[in-house]
């Protein structure tokens, strides 16, 4: 009898202990990996032919952190912009004296040699005060030389006084308060120089993504007179090959809820996905084309089967199943944070709640 009681007491205790210890045991094991830093030098950064600091360009007033462009450095923005873990961005174009861009209806405009494009990535400490307490992370530069583009990125130092050339990229932990007052944080990923190309590749060559007619065709917000941005570029003599924005294509602002869902969703996919998912892009082997100009529903994913998606398929059969976002690979991959499943492959460590809501609504409305 006493033996039996002991036995009954022993098992629940053991289970209780096991349950308490187990999750910790596993966690402990996963953290057990200790990594020691070691140098590996093959060629030094001095071998890289590029300016080593952002201030070396001399394109912005000091202190650099105030992002005040000098004369002939032209701020611009886009109708719809790429989601990069909620980072804020400021964009500038520099053209050599007396030179202009040449208009193109579909692709990025043709830039003269010596052109520069700057893009600042930063997080205000409090998104409700977007001009105050900026935390600069990186500034990317596209350089036009010998009819070719080169991409570089500069990482801001702790004092926020300058940014320094980076070859291999980095990860920075960033915290902020979002529009609703909630604390947010992310391990922001700064790309290496090859990752730059993996988005900026067009038919095997580097290409800007934003400065296209459809994305620039919007009111100009950097002066008090609200002219059209393309008209403004034309009037400054910075854009040739077209006389007015009136005949330019235009993509809507996906965040503008008063516009039709279909247009907004296609704009979102265009700026977030179509730099790879287009016939000339690095994801051409998937046969998925997410340019807003694509008219064929199968080509932009409706009842399209995946090619070599591996775990990216998530056990689902089609990119988009009309009416069923939860059965659509497109939604599944946009919602995932797992490397190898998550889309886009780079620059996204968080799910974009607003973007997902838009794509969900779009797929639900499909017949």
């Amino acid at each position, binding site marked *: 009898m006493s033996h039996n009681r002991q036995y009954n007491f022993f098992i629940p205790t053991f289970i209780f202990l096991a349950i308490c210890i*187990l999750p910790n045991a596993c966690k402990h094991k996963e953290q057990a*990996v200790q990594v020691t830093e*070691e140098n590996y030098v093959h060629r030094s950064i001095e071998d890289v032919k590029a300016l080593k600091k952002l201030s070396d360009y001399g394109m912005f007033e000091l202190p650099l952190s105030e992002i005040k462009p000098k004369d002939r450095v032209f701020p611009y923005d886009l109708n719809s912009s790429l989601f990069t873990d909620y980072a804020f961005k400021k964009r500038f174009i520099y053209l050599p004296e007396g030179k202009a861009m040449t208009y193109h209806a579909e692709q990025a405009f043709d830039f003269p040699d010596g052109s520069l494009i700057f893009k600042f990535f930063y997080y205000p400490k409090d998104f409700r005060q977007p001009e105050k307490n900026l935390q600069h992370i990186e500034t990317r530069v596209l350089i036009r030389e010998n009819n070719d583009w080169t991409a570089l990125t500069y990482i801001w130092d702790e004092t926020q006084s300058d940014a320094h050339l980076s070859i291999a990229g980095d990860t920075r932990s960033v915290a902020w308060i979002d529009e609703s007052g909630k604390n947010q944080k992310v391990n922001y990923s700064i790309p290496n120089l090859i990752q730059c190309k*993996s988005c900026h590749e067009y038919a*095997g060559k580097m290409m800007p993504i934003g400065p296209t007619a459809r994305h620039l065709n919007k009111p100009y917000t950097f002066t008090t007179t609200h002219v059209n941005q393309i008209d403004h570029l034309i009037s400054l003599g910075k854009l040739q090959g077209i006389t007015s924005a009136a005949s330019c294509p235009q993509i809507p602002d996906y965040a503008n809820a008063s516009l039709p869902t279909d247009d907004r969703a296609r704009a979102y996919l265009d700026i977030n996905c179509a730099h790879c998912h287009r016939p000339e892009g690095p994801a051409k082997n998937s046969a998925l084309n997410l340019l807003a100009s694509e008219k064929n529903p199968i080509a932009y994913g409706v009842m399209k089967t*995946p090619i070599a998606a*591996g*775990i990216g398929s998530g*056990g689902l059969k089609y990119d988009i199943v009309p009416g069923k976002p939860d059965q659509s690979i497109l939604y599944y991959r946009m919602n995932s944070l797992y*490397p190898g499943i998550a889309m886009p492959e780079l620059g996204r460590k968080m799910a974009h709640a607003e973007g997902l809501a838009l794509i969900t609504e779009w797929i639900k409305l499909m017949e």
Partner: protein
Amino acid sequence: MSRKSLFTFGVLIVIISSFFSCQQVDEREGIVWKNIEKGLQSAFISAKNGDTIRLDSGHFWFTRSLMMDGKSDIVIIGEGMDQTILSFKGQQEGAEGIKISNCKNIQLIAFTVEDAKGDNIKVTDTDGILFSKVKVYWTNGAKENNGAYGFYPVLCKRVVIEDCVAARASDAGVYVGQSDSVVIRRNTVYENVAGIESENSNFVEIYDNHTYNNTGGILVFDLPGLTQYGHHTRVFNNKVISNNHSNFAPKGNIVGMVPPGTGIMLLATRKIEIFDNEITDNRTCPTAIISYDLVTEMSQDKKENDSSGQPINHQYKLDSLYDPYPNHVFIHGNTFSNKHWFPTLESDFGKLFLTKFFMDTPDIVIDGFSDTKLKDGFAFCMDQSNIAFANLNIPENLKNIRTDPSPYLCKEGKVQETTFKFPGQ
């Protein structure tokens, strides 16, 4: 024991077993991991054409893909596949371990890449890529959430994969896709869904490999809707042994339809010669030659909402360049043996074979779909004696299965050998 204590006992077993599976997660404690990530990635980017990048022996820990783009004549060399280990177990970013793109004449020699979240080594749009004495695998067993491919050259020319090891890929250990001029030799390939898979590739030589305990040993597939279609492949002198592993491919992928117990499978491809292989103890389909019509048929058998069905490119009939039927397949001189009396029952094929060929699983099966206008004189022929053959005659719903090999016997049908200058030669 009372029912209650039985239940408790059951719970205890579950907990204890989960405890052991937890322990397996880190089977190799005590490793000194080193971080050379930024330095090595910088080396990959700043290397000058003609450089050799050396990797010491040791265990190296990476959190991102290692990438190289637009280089020529680079050698990346370690101290040996058991000495230099690059682990991507802590990967937080990127869909592959190493990714090489738009390069020319790259040699990867003597190291291991393990546990990438996606593919272990992907090489794309590259002319001249050699893998020698490189091991790629996932350390935690054959799992559905392992990456798709071990070696993954795609859209490449002049590909050599030799003396390598590839294991536990949830799609293919050694995969070559949409590529031209390929040699895959002397590799050891095990516990993948597909051991070696050549897809939509031309002039491929697969020989002297040892593939065992995969779901399927060696696959030569041609799928519709891609940039090019495959032809001219020779598969010879391979050991294709006991490829009976359960199929752990994530659903939605074409290799998900490969039945466990497949030795060699050809799908919709042409100018193929399969000879002098040792095909042993593959329980279900030692050798199968099938058409894309069968893939379609298998998919349509499934109910619309059944996610286990494979996705089908319904548009393949609109693709005038795609031929869904195998063509000019010549099989000779292989040795078949099978100690198993029964096929595996994890697939429709296995169940079918159990009922149709009780205790006598055929060595070579064809599906019976045929091309009405043959381009190369014959679809399939063989110079094999003492084998069990079956034409499943699937178009007539498996009635009239024919086991007489005599309509398919021939002596000629060789496919020309492929030679090319290797990277580094």
